[in-house]
């Protein structure tokens, strides 16, 4: 099938499956997550279509699409304002299960990720171990056929909606800090496991802290061997960094800011889109975004040629997130005081009431606020630059 025909097929599906409430959830996204209910509705729609996991190999339930087709699908979804799907199961745990899981683990868990029956969250960071993950102390001590887990995990996105969590835990204090870490799969309804929501700066909850008080987990829930969790996690971290396509996000941001600039007026009562200083600033960001777009295509090209993102994945993470933040800042200037208005109810896709101020500014401040975290999580901008200096420049 030509790419254009494929694109039409995707559009036809989106036209049909993306109901207004789902689209509204996509429009109202103020972070990487959309409204939970709408997200799950969209998950199920994709699952019935067989399109829930385009990045998975066909044997595990993937679509068998080419890299180009997957890119087109992502792009069309984002531009049609489909909600993003949480990455933890589909993008993170899934591939690792395929690489490191036993047949039994794969047979059990993978279909449940596809169907949405299991919602996974990621238990890596700890209060004392952020960028320096190797220093984590949450422990798993062998007790018969089980492990007993004690400690806590923080910044576990979506833990409040999840029924499962994959964790890095310390199973040994011998050797290098990385050497004593294991990767384990835990039921969220285990006794002794408690979830405490963390309210974000926009007033909503996306992150949680998860406490483990003698949580008993069968040893068969290890993914990979005991004490080899670091290797499992490392491939995941690489995935988290290299896997995201920022260009698609930027195109959505560009469309949004153009909408704002074509409705709001500047100090001279012109539309902002006619203000030369504004357009120069927008062009400056857009040119950087364009350069990133072709860099992401180079990465894709490398994948197609059987290579990997390598050095460029730290680059796309740093540049992609920083460009996103610059768009947010520029939006703030256009929306002015309208951006101050906090309407958490109107950010729900189910909201039926009146909104205050221009609809195009509804998400501006929350996006600005929430996007500050994008240069912190998944390897901070500083860590990424350390990586480039060390691994690419061999400094």
């Amino acid at each position, binding site marked *: 099938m030509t790419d254009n025909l494929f694109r039409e097929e995707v559009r036809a599906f989106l036209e049909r499956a993306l109901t207004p409430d789902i689209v509204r959830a996509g429009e109202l996204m103020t972070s990487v997550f959309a409204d939970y209910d709408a997200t799950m509705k969209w998950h199920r729609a994709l699952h019935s279509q067989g399109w829930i996991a385009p990045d998975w190999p066909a044997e595990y339930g993937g679509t068998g699409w080419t890299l180009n087709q997957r890119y087109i699908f992502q792009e069309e979804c984002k531009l049609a304002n489909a909600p993003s799907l949480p990455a933890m199961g589909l993008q993170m745990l899934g591939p690792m299960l395929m690489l490191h899981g036993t047949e039994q683990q794969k047979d059990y868990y993978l279909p449940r990720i596809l169907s949405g029956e299991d919602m996974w969250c990621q238990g890596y960071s700890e209060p004392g171990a952020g960028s320096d993950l190797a220093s984590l102390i949450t422990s798993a001590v062998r007790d018969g056929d089980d492990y007993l887990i004690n400690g806590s995990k923080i910044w576990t996105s979506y833990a409040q909606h999840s029924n499962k969590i994959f964790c890095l835990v310390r199973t040994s204090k011998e050797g290098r800090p990385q050497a004593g870490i294991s990767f384990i799969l835990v039921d969220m309804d285990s006794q002794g496991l408690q979830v405490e929501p963390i309210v974000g700066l926009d007033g909503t909850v996306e992150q949680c802290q998860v406490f483990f008080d003698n949580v008993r987990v069968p040893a068969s829930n290890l993914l990979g061997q005991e004490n080899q969790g670091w290797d499992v996690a490392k491939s995941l971290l690489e995935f988290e960094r290299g896997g995201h396509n920022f260009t698609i996000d930027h195109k959505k941001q560009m469309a949004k800011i153009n909408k704002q600039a074509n409705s709001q007026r500047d100090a001279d009562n012109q539309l902002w889109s006619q203000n030369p200083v504004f357009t120069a600033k927008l062009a400056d960001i857009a040119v950087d975004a364009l350069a990133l777009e072709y860099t992401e295509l180079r990465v894709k090209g490398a994948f197609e040629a059987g290579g990997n993102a390598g050095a460029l994945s730290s680059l796309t993470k740093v540049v992609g997130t920083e460009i996103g933040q610059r768009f947010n800042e520029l939006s*703030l200037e256009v929306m002015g005081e309208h951006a101050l208005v906090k309407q958490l109810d109107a950010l729900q896709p189910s909201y039926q009431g009146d909104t205050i101020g*221009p609809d195009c500014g509804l998400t501006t401040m929350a996006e600005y606020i929430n996007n500050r975290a994008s240069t912190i999580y998944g390897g901070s901008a500083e860590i990424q630059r350390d990586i480039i200096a060390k691994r690419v420049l061999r400094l």
Partner: protein
Amino acid sequence: MFIEYSEEQTMLHDSADKYLRENYSFENRQAALARDAGFNAEQWQMFADLGWLAMTFEEEAGGFGGGALETMILCEQFGKYLVLEPYLESVVLVGGLLEAGGQTAIKQQYLAGLMAGELQGALAYLEEGHMANPQYVAAKAEVAANGYLLNGHKAVVLNGPEADLFLVTARTGNDVLDSAAGISLFAVPKNAPGLSCKNYKTYDGRSACELQLDNVALDAQALVGVAGEFSELAEPIFSRAIVAVCAEAVGAMDALLNATVDYTKQRKQFGQSISSFQVLRHRMADMYMDIELTRSLLMATAWKLDNGSEDAQQCVAALKAKVGKAGRYVSHNAIQLHGGIGTTDEFSVGHYFKRLAAIGVMFGSRDSHLSRYMQFEI
């Protein structure tokens, strides 16, 4: 120039710092934030008792005759302690405009109450889609029997839900909706028939509302200042308000830098305090430089306003533009260096950040002020 504080000014600075340090902990502040009003009425009363609310009014009006410097001194402390109480809205803006242009009856009715902390005010001057331009006024005031009849809509009226008195801009002449000429200001009591509010909170924890005016009838005494000359009346008051928010910003940036220095010294990663990482050290040095540069501009601007320097307005524009850039730089890096906890509601860092974001969009964007700055001879 350059300024030295008078003894009274030094005392004001020290006593405000002391009072707030002892009585305005972040925990108390968060408790106040959760209230409907979004602030603590008892604190407001204390501010009045301490004389802060009357500080900048003329002595004949019952004030202490303070100027932009006193406003700056107080507001810098308000910024440092993240004070929620509506000093800017009620005192600087509404109080300032009333004092400058209010007719005797209105002044008598409200001014003493504002200074005593018994009454609150809110300025309603923005209209939807035109945030960058206070001179875009579509709301209309028609001359009617014994006064005026107001119709229109006002957006993002800060402190509106708490206001006893609104000052509202409306067009009395000139059909060009974005013309500076022909805008008038009116005092509208909260219970005026035809006035309705839609209340909400802002991201930085203030209360605000949208104001709807449907045939609100006012008597002739409601006019504040000369008919059609709101822009002239407002210029010095907006200048004072810009000094107020910029002083708040400097206080907030200072607090953020201190918090970041402390945090990075304590926080360990890879076996050492993260304050030992040169990139973070230089980041904090840059934050420091931005803050001190902004502080210099702030002090100079306040001084020039009080001394009627001819380049005072140019300094006001420069100051707001500088605060726009510095506020972003400092608050973004404070969050970045705090990592995850900087993005949560329970630590103060994020609240400073949100307040600086709000100040950044208030009274005109950075670019508007840069463009204003260039319109002066330089």
